[in-house]
């Protein structure tokens, strides 16, 4: 599917941390009864993980399930698998009130890498990083737009925003990571 391109086509900047647009990612908004047996089975089949608890993200290689609200999950899969995954989720949840919508193309994904990754995000997101648990996803804002992020590796955060504001978010990350603006310089 070479016609599909991400909003910024993978642009990146290197400051005191490295910020980059991470390219296309399959994403599915899944709403329903998160406690139901069918839901657990459907999520397991789609991502290989359990249904995440409140404010948690369950990671499994290139797949993940993230808690968005008491009746909404975000399912992450490789971009090419999104359409099939929606169909599989709908089949698995047939007969139960739910909504599965492919939002892969409605989003932009960024990575913020480096020992001071959280210092760049602290300038944009009103989040207490000291109390951010391992495996937690935080829905918040980056300056003036909605976003969500989680710790995707040691010294790395993955941040998701709406596609239309990808340029704005990259602008924010670029400025926030400029050398000399470290929040806690040694």
């Amino acid at each position, binding site marked *: 599917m070479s016609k599909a391109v991400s909003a910024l086509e993978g642009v990146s900047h290197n400051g005191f941390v490295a910020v980059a647009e991470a390219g296309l990612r399959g994403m599915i908004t899944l*709403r329903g009864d998160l406690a139901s047996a069918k839901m657990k089975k459907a999520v397991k089949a789609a991502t290989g993980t359990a249904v995440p608890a409140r404010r948690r993200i369950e990671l499994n290689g290139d797949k993940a399930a993230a808690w968005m609200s008491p009746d909404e999950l975000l399912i992450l899969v490789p971009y090419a698998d999104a359409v099939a995954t929606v169909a599989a989720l709908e089949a698995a949840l047939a007969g139960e009130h739910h*909504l599965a919508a492919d939002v892969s193309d409605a989003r932009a994904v960024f990575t913020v890498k480096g020992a001071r990754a959280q210092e760049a995000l602290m*300038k944009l997101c*009103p989040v207490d990083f000291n109390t951010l648990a391992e495996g937690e996803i935080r829905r918040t804002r980056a*300056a003036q737009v909605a976003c969500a992020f989680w710790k995707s590796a040691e010294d790395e955060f993955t941040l998701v925003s709406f596609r239309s504001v990808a340029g704005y978010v990259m602008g924010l990350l670029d400025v926030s990571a400029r050398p000399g603006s470290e929040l806690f310089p040694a």
Partner: protein
Amino acid sequence: MSTRLQKGGRLIDRTKPLSFSFNGKRMRGFAGDTLASALLGQDQMMVGRSFKYHRPRGVIASGAEEPNGLVGLGQGGRFEPNQRLTTTELFEGAETASQNHWPSLEFDVGAINDRFARFLPGGFYYKTFMFPRFAWKHVFEPVIRQSAGLGRVPQNRDEDRYEYAYAFADLVIVGGGIAGLAAALAAGRQGKRVWLIEQSAHWGGRAVVDAVQIEGTEASDWVKDAVEAIEGMENVTLRTRTMASGLYDHGYLLMYERIADHTPGDGRPRHRLWRMRAGHVITATGAIERPLSFAGNDIPGVMLASAVRDYVVNWAVSPGDRTVIVTNNDDAYRTALALLDAGLVVPAIIDARPEAKGPLPEAARARGLRVVEGHGIAKVKGSKRVTGVSLCVQAGEGAELETISCDAVAMSGGWSPVVHLWSHCGGKLIWDEAQAMFRPDAKRPATGADGAAMVTAIGSANGILNAHEVLADAHSAAGGKGAAPGAVCGEDAPMMPVWIMPQGAGPALRMKMWLDPQNDVKVSDVQLAAREGYESVEHTKRYTTLGMATDQGKISNINGLAVLSDALNRGIPETGTTTFRPPYTPISMGAIAGEARGEIFQPLRKTPMHGWHETHGAHWEPVGQWRRAYCYLRHGEGVHDAVNREIRNTRNAVGLLDASTLGKIIVKGPDAGRFLDMLYTNMMSTLPVGKCRYGLMCSENGFLSDDGVVVRLTEDSWLCHTTTGGAERIHGWMEDWLQCEWWDWKVYTANVTEEYAQVAIAGPNARKLLEKLGGMDVSREAFPAMEWREGTLGGFRARIYRISFSGELSYEVAVPASEGRAFWDALLAAGEEFGVMPYGTEAMHIMRAEKGFIMIGDETDGTVIPQDLNLGWAISKKKPDYLGKRAQERSFMASPDRWKLVGLETLDGGVIPDGAYAVAEGVNANGQRNTQGRVTSTYFSPTLGKGIAMGLVRHGPDRMGEVLDFPVDDGKVVKARIVDPVFYDKEGEKQNV
């Protein structure tokens, strides 16, 4: 004259000389200087002119309370007015310029105001410029504006950058003096997450200057050790150059960090605004010394006693060879002793108290100083600098008994705790009679969400001036275990409140006693306000401008309200204080804006095809936060021509519109049909799968709120299109009803607006274009109007809606946003042979108007109901209810007299101005001409070759053919005939081919 001493200066580094300029004159200072200490070190006593009378002004203080020392600092993109000399660190090459004078600081024409001071009393503006009325706007205000204002407005774009940072802490301690340090030590040892911030570049506050002994060592050594110990604590964050500007509800504390003010151009952000959420705040903000009100107390060289001490000890700056001390307390004697230690002369200590017998006065006497008890200063001699003082008895009327020559006067009227942060969120104060100060009332603090105290004041900020007691207070307030650090510092004898010196001063002296030296408010002005009936301190403040200058009255407010209380013959607590409001000291506009400037000033939403539009002459139109192409300009073409070209091409060949911004919301579930029947005025539950229906949404009050095409996707799911600006609002509206009112309905919604790139392909050649792309049957027979199909079109996953907003044969095609640009390019390539040409939003607007289609925001403005727009056909008569139904049945909504939609055609073929009103006979109760209609949309139609318009007219649809008068600019009247709003292809043959 003020000068640099040969020795001493704990903050300066004499091995690092720095050069700077003042009004173009080269000057020298040292690393560690403030601009104030550097200027005083070079005998620059006069640094500016006052606001109203343009009187010479010198530095009074050594910190944030300074009212006079304000300069323009920097050049070009780094110029900023009103920079406070006492809190600005000197850096190499600093360019400073004094303010509020013309042509020069030394000779200022505006100083003529001073001669006429008796004609410029408090409330002068209000009294003088009342009559004649027109003169205010045309004469007085322009003149006053010309002469008013401190400093110049920067003309260049700010070269620096700024940012926010969000932080969280259990405890934030504000103020890095010994109280703050002791509290940080105590709290840090308990493992709490603590921040300790200090507005200046140095730790230790006053204690290090006043040579207090703490735990057996000099205060400066104790401070150094304490800072080191705290730095070793992982859980404590230390910040200098960080000022707590304001405290707000729920422990929200704004902290202003001046990162690079002292290193301009080093690439770091200049300022950072910390948006701190604090569990608790301790204010260890110290106290500010008060001036005394005696005649001539505003002459350069009259300074606060503590500031004189600071300049000598911290920066080795002498205010002059001979400094007279005038005081009502013991603390000022420390200044006398510090001056003596520096080898300077103190001709006399004038103490207003009848008796001065405490340890400090005795120590002064023991060193041979003359202490004059029961006396005050009658008058300060000099104009641009102090040359001497005359003495009088404090109890008298000011008869001059003796004159003493001197270069400076160090005054102390007692201390005022810095209670700003304590008060910002409602912490109350009590009047401490013994110390003559307002201090925090621990019983009435600002409270947090849990009802408990959100702020604790400690040390001098809590009204405790003795270092030993300060440390004990700090230690216990921070929950310290064990004994508090102990200090040795002499006991001060009680002070005596002195609000006017001498107490019986007559009018001539009171007119020369300054309360607020920046805004020129004197004792006589406040007394005049009292005589004129001003009783509230808030009113008096505004009438006299007391405390309204850029220093916000840090040194003047208490003296002013004491004078007011005296004039009103009531106690100071009865008068009370004015309200303490953030920021504590001014913060830069840049810090408030943070990172939001230039490209990231605000989010700009871009469609997947944005890049193509940008490189093909898009003339942008903001729609919400989106940028949409209004039209595409070709070389040398005007906007009007481009729009006309795009319309003609769409009507004759085929056009493409980037419609990606249209809102798209999926509504799914067993109750989704019932839900949509409530949201839309028409019936959506009966829409067959595979079909589309135009729908209207109203507010509960019946007014038309949004419109769009609704698509039945499956048995239990619908896709609702909204207007571009309405997507988020309508999604929120849906969730509001689902979550708050109909929480038991089984409906889920998802806003998938950005998932799809959507292109309207409109025009007689639209079908040929899609057929060439291939893959889906788009024939008239297989794919009728108001239906949709899903499939693969030219290799793209596509959903096609056969809907038309232009009146042409039209398909709207949605593809995944990530493929949007490729799809757009494919359409352009395939359409070349059919004359394909993109069109912008203006062409869309005009084409819909030619067809008589309404537009939300043009034909609606929040007061229009669907019935007004003849949209009764889209209002279900069968449904028992929908949002807005009940409201539309109210008498005024159902009235036949409401203005209704019609078309309008000018008699001369021209275009009526948008918003023009049609006049009716007679005038209303206000003498205004009656009206009977207004224009809601108006364009030049290239298709018809004339102006067309839509409007709302009283009884409009019943008045076809009537001609209305629309008065426009310059007394002209446009005549227009009422016609059918469908101007083009009334039968709809073009779109049904």
